[in-house]
């Protein structure tokens, strides 16, 4: 009879089982196991990009679905995110070396007066996992920070985050300033944060409200594809 408590030895699993186990370990927020599994797959000549997308991003996608469905809660998602972050820490330099495909670039930051960054960090991580280059401006950003970053990094996407009812109106300050400078339509503006909603997003002049990290990734890909199509048809 098999011992139910028998420890799983990751290195003894075949690739398919190991990836499945990584999904489970991400779900359970097991950081060290994820680090170990990433290193095993690298040793088996998996490309960093495949490890990122097939093991880590797919695992976090499942976490995201269960969070949205109310099966997982914020603490569990944070543990999963920590585990993914540890895996990405190993992969990031290798992804640069191996020239993994880049989908686009995003500048993201929490607005002025707001120090909350859990959601923003999750979005940044999932966007990075989806192949975006992410420039994270951190917290408490006045409009100048956003404008300077747009000028410097020339991203396709600007993402703004706020957790407070009192700080979220600042997003309009940023969008209005972009309009004044005639650069609003050069960027896709995505907004997110617990008190936000679709209506607010439209009112401040953003392109979309993203209720969670997974939605942000899908929305970003979709809007970038639309923009490319538009440019192609205009050309």
């Amino acid at each position, binding site marked *: 009879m098999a011992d139910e408590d028998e420890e799983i030895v990751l290195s003894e699993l075949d690739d398919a089982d190991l990836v499945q186990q990584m999904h489970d370990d991400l779900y359970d927020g097991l950081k060290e196991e994820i680090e170990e599994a990433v290193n095993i797959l690298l040793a088996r000549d998996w490309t960093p990009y495949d490890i990122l997308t097939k093991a880590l991003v797919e695992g976090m996608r499942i976490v995201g679905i269960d969070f949205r469905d109310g099966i997982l*809660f*914020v*603490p*569990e998602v*944070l*543990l999963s995110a*920590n585990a993914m972050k540890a895996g990405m820490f190993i992969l990031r330099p290798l992804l640069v070396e191996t020239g993994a495909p880049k989908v686009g670039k995003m500048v993201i930051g929490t607005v*002025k*007066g*707001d*120090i*909350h*960054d*859990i959601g923003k960090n999750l979005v940044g991580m999932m966007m990075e996992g989806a192949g975006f280059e992410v420039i994270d401006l951190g*917290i*408490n950003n006045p409009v100048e920070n956003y404008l300077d970053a747009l000028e410097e990094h020339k991203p396709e996407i600007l993402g703004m985050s706020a957790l*407070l*009812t*009192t700080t*979220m109106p600042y997003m309009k300050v940023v969008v209005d300033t972009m309009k004044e400078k005639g650069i609003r339509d050069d960027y896709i503006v995505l907004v997110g944060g*617990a*008190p*936000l*909603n679709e*209506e*607010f997003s439209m009112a401040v002049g953003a392109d979309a409200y993203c209720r969670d990290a997974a939605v942000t990734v899908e929305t970003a890909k979709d809007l970038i594809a639309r923009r490319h199509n538009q440019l192609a048809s205009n050309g």
Partner: protein
Amino acid sequence: MPDTTPARRSLTSALPDLGELAQDRTLIIACGALAREIGTVIGRNGLSHLALRCLPATLHNTPDKIPEAVRAAIHASREKYGRIIVGYADCGTGGLLDKVCAEEGVERIPGPHCYAFYTGNAAFEAAGDDDMTSFYLTDFLVRQFDTLVIRTLGLDRHPELRDMYFGNYEKVIYLAQTENAELTVAAEQAAEKLGLAFERRFVGLGDLARFINDVN
């Protein structure tokens, strides 16, 4: 068949018509976190024309559910009470509670959250970003700290998450509603658990008391 015996009839006629009485009263549909405080204002000032119904304070963990919960409570009480007001600030609903209030024709306590109306909305706004890195506690939150903060955030099971939640904060500001030494000690201990500095400000009931007192 109705009971028309004399004794029963006199008993019935001696009773006030509660339905009509309620029509003269105003119902406050409030956040459970304000129950004690609103009850205090009503009791202290003899505001017998006010009735109070509280929704669970845990709704604050899912603020997107507050507007419809308030709407449901309004619908459930509308026929009974002459007037209804809402004992919530915006409370992280991003304007959606205001939309419900407008649609239902009811008024709510002005302000973005209880920290602001306890402090006084004008004073809170004037402080600007000065307290941006502060985590606020009220009497209610001090009493419920372990349940609503520690357990809800999973810090009892995963204390290692503390800095992910509170790493950008510098201090706890305890906005005290009452002079209560035990609560002050508990608030200080809460700050310690979060690894933050501690400050106590006595603010009382601020704009909440004025709002309740002014309800006709």
